[in-house]
């Protein structure tokens, strides 16, 4: 039902667009097609597509057209997005974790020495995600807390145990940009 003329190509563009798709943009992609034809195709596409009563609809918004889910499915979408494991780490978290993994047990100030930035809030995040744990106190002035990685850390990165962690030397040939 969408195979007539530019209907499907425009639908494809709506699908990949990050901002509302405007007629001006369409005219740029198809400079030889009269604007009127583009307008008609678009209007027809909107009415055809929306008559499907699918979870997704084309809406006119911000001077253009956009594919969005219909509001009634927000709860399902939210539930789905919550199932996505929080496997994602910010770069700061990753760096802090790397220092802890390789230098454990290690104190916050030692981490800061290596990273060059304060890592306090990152430490909290990593503790919350149970990727690191406290590992006693260092026997120096102030007796600062030391941190190390957890079993969850090994699971998260698919390591059987810490000895599975590649050493820097080992990955040298992979990491150094020398090439073949």
């Amino acid at each position, binding site marked *: 039902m969408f195979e007539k003329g530019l209907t499907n190509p425009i639908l494809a563009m709506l699908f*990949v*667009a990050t901002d509302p798709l405007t007629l001006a943009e369409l005219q740029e992609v198809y400079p030889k097609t009269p604007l009127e034809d583009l307008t008609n195709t678009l209007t027809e596409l909107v009415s055809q597509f929306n008559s499907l009563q699918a979870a997704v609809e084309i809406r006119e918004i911000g001077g253009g057209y956009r594919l*969005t889910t219909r509001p009634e499915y927000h709860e399902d979408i939210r539930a789905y997005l919550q199932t996505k494991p929080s496997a*994602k780490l910010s770069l700061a978290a*990753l760096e802090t974790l*790397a*220092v802890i993994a390789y230098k454990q047990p290690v104190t916050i100030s030692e981490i800061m020495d290596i990273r060059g930035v304060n890592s306090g809030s990152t430490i909290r995040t990593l503790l919350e995600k149970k990727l690191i744990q406290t590992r006693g106190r260092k026997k120096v002035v102030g007796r600062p807390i030391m941190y190390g990685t957890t079993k969850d850390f090994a699971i998260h*990165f698919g390591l059987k145990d810490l000895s599975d962690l590649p050493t820097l030397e080992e990955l040298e040939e992979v990491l150094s940009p020398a090439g073949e």
Partner: protein
Amino acid sequence: MASELTMEAGALASPQIQNQAYTVRLEIFEGPLDLLLHLIRQQEIDIYEIALAEIADQYLHYLEMMKDLNITVAGEFLVMAATLIHIKSRMLLPEEPNSEVEQEIEEFRKDLVQQLLDHEKFKQAAQMLYVRETVELSVWPRGENEFEEEERELVSATVFDLVSAFHQMVERYKESIVLEVAGESVTVQEKLEEIRRLLSVQESILFSFFFERGLSHLHLVVTFFALLELTRLHEVRLIQTAAFEDIRIQSCLKKD
């Protein structure tokens, strides 16, 4: 799929005369096995039927050709060449049925045939992946939406990311010591104003911009704090689309 290189050269086998210079087409081989397979295909013989002495000669001749053309021959090619020369020298010894020498040659032959067969299989697999990739690159998933925007600034991490992050930090740490300059002072407030000024004339700045200017360690730390402060005030957003990519500092203040 094999990439080919056309080059001008002084003199060579099967050259075509063209404006008094010889033009030679030389295929680029990924390694010794690739070259051997090519030589076998040229003769249109079955891999099982290869004549070791002949193929060794051709292989060595090809390496000579590369040398003449001043093409650097990778170590792997030379290792294979040495092996072939060794086998050839063994073959020149007087024949003695079922001798150790004969067994050694037969063993080598069997191994080489197996290696070539395996190699060819995986070249076919690579070809198959190439075709699949070509098809896949013409389909598009959906563009980013509001739900994903927050996620996009994060990266999902693997062990490799972890090691690389550490590696980079160590490198950074080494360099930062050199950058230290004594007796200078800069405040977070000053840096904050500087970043605001920059963002009033351009939409975004790359994080590396501050590094490229060869600023001291102190400046970098202060810059970092200034950025954190601006992020907290919702004046800027820090965007990193993938691990190890440069961080883009984008103004959140609408200018129009």
